[in-house]
């Protein structure tokens, strides 16, 4: 069964003015779709034809002969996850147990935000910044290109895409502004809390 491009979990205008419908038309409609299409082309007739996305990612990570499988499969997964990390009316502080876990791990929400932003802005070139669960610990990491936390045995809780295509039409070179806006206006903390609950 070929993979399908998932629909966005909200209207493409839902995150305006922070994340534009125009950006979604390319980021979801072209980039995410190309990763799905490229993966399906590679899968046809391959040993991974019946595998899940996660199985493909884990089986091909670090294998120089399967870079195409890994890059496309991981980018399909990363983008689907990223769409869910945003929601209209999102951003700001988390609440409840998640807020307590963030305070415990980073000292405060402000310190978490500072560290997350530094990881996202400091990722040179294309990649992602993540809040992950590593064992019992909440951590912030960044990964280059298509790399994704599951290959390091970590559970993704939140991500921001810092490939330039993720923000260039709306923010151009101002990546720090994009990441700040993501934190202040877009983060879907309910989804993050759900990821944390499921990881237990």
């Amino acid at each position, binding site marked *: 069964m070929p993979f399908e491009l998932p629909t966005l979990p909200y209207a493409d205008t839902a995150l305006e003015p922070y994340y534009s419908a125009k950006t979604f038309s*390319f980021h979801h409609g072209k980039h995410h779709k190309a990763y799905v299409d490229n993966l399906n082309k590679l899968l046809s007739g391959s040993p991974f034809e019946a595998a899940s996305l996660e199985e493909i990612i884990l089986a091909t990570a670090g294998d120089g002969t399967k870079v195409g499988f890994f890059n496309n499969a991981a980018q399909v997964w990363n983008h689907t996850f990223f769409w869910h990390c945003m929601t209209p009316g999102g951003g700001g502080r988390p609440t409840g147990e998640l807020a307590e876990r963030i305070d415990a791990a980073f000292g405060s929400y402000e310190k978490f935000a500072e560290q997350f932003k530094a990881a996202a802005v400091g990722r040179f070139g*294309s*990649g992602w910044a993540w809040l992950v669960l590593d064992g019992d610990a909440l951590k912030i990491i960044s990964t280059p290109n*298509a790399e994704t936390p599951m290959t390091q045995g970590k559970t993704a809780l939140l991500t921001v895409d810092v490939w330039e*295509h993720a923000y*260039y039409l709306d923010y*151009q070179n101002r990546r720090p502004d994009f990441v700040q806006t993501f934190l202040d206006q877009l983060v879907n903390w309910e989804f993050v809390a759900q990821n944390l609950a499921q990881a237990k």
Partner: protein
Amino acid sequence: MAYELAPLPYDYSALEPYIDTQTMQIHHDKHHAAYTTNLNKAVAGTDFENLPAEELLTQLDHLPESIRTAVRNNGGGYVNHNLFWAVLGPNAGGAPSGKLAAAIDAAFGSFDAFKEKLSAAGMGRFGSGWAWLVVKPDGRLDVYSTANQDSPLTAGDKPILGLDVWEHAYYLKYQNRRADYVANFFHVVNWAAVAKNFTAALG
């Protein structure tokens, strides 16, 4: 002596319609400027602050680890963009002539085969990076791509033509259509400048 951001050698609009004015403004005045500033920050007060930027990259492995990544990224960004602006120009494109044309034919079979190889290198670079025409230490030409701002100088080669495939180089005009940008790049290559680089690289 701080590294300086030189003005573009032509107007921001000079590469229209292939590379748009807004892209040139942001690419030069923001991205290239940031690499310049960050390179200066990285080497300020070190023994290396008076070295030519190219030398920082050929010597990268000998730099202290504390500044190596910052120089690799920002020194690379500074030098790569200096080359990029110099090998582009208005009323350019076409094909090289003379010794460079002969060397390209000898290395790749034909100019068209070279264009295909450089385009494939640019298209195949996953994430951010560059495709290059370089002169190897033995004087032969080669084409390959590097990730991010990694410079061929660090590998001992001399880049004489660079194709920037960071998304910031083309996204405002071409969005996801990197292939169209790469095809149009050849309309603005200043082959006289590349030939000059070739002669200098052969020393």
